[in-house]
């Protein structure tokens, strides 16, 4: 499918105001947590025949303590922005694993989740957990403690 989309909608760069204050975030328990700075609202005012809303993320990851770390990340969606009870995982087709083994690795994690086009406004965020408490994972800074604010871009395609 080929279609044309206005520049201002495609380039709708979302910058979450709270993201500027994001501190480093450790994941070391078996509880799934929100990834700080990744929650954004996106309104589709006119779909322009687009098929998808893109959730595009860039997040710094740091080596801290473990040489063998893995984290499981998934996209959540709030279909009614006035009702937090509607926040739910988008399910098994919106999941990624990031894992390194036996090394001291800093990296920038990137990815794109495509949600079928909708009308109105919805809220999205990433949630994550390591596999177990022995799999330590740190986000939003490198191993020299330099901070890197997560970047979330949303646009229609």
């Amino acid at each position, binding site marked *: 499918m*080929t279609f*044309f*989309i206005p520049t201002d909608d495609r380039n709708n760069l979302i910058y979450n105001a709270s993201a500027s204050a994001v501190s480093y975030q450790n994941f070391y328990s078996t509880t*799934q947590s929100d990834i700080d700075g990744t929650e954004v609202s996106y309104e589709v005012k006119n779909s322009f025949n687009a098929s998808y809303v893109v959730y595009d993320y860039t997040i710094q990851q740091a080596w801290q303590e473990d040489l063998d770390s893995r984290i499981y990340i998934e996209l959540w969606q709030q279909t009614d922005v006035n009702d937090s009870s509607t926040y739910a995982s988008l399910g098994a087709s919106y999941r*990624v694993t990031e894992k390194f*083994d036996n090394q001291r690795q800093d*990296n920038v994690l990137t*990815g794109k989740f495509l949600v079928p086009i909708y009308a109105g406004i919805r809220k999205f965020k990433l949630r994550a957990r390591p596999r177990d408490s022995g799999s330590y994972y740190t986000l939003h800074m490198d191993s020299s403690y330099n901070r890197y604010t997560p970047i979330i871009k949303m646009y229609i395609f």
Partner: protein
Amino acid sequence: MTYLNKCYNNNKIKILVENSPNAQHIVASTHTSFTNITYTEIDYKPQTYIDGSKASFVIYSTSILLDQVSNSSKTAGTYRLAKSTDNGNTWVEWGDNTNFHFSTWENCSIDASVLDINFCLDTASWDDTLKLQMQLKLKQTVGAEFNIHKNYQFYDQSGDVSSANNVYKPKVMCWSIK
């Protein structure tokens, strides 16, 4: 003079998404030469503008998940962009520095990650529709084995849900730049 305050670009965006991808199993016994990566194929022709000029560049963009198939397998691979001018019967590498390697060596490894791939392609000799797709071969043959598109394991807030079909939908996009 009156300007339109909402300018529609004409960069001819094309996007393909596979909503129910099957895992592509990459293993040393069969993938030591370049093989096609599933769901990364797209047909595209550079945009021609109203003044008759052609786009100078095309962006080829794809995003795929790599994940191990056991706790000890690795994802080391060499990747390249390929093109076909005969509707997919034969494929040749695009060239022009569109090859790269992903992963690490020896005992260190990246066992799972998303690959966000973007190439800026010169359209100087590109006038008709081409098929494009990514290809890969294993960088090393010892211990290198992985799946594309499917998570090996997954733990959510309820615990181990690895038995579900946990996937990352592969997507491929092209658009033109004047």
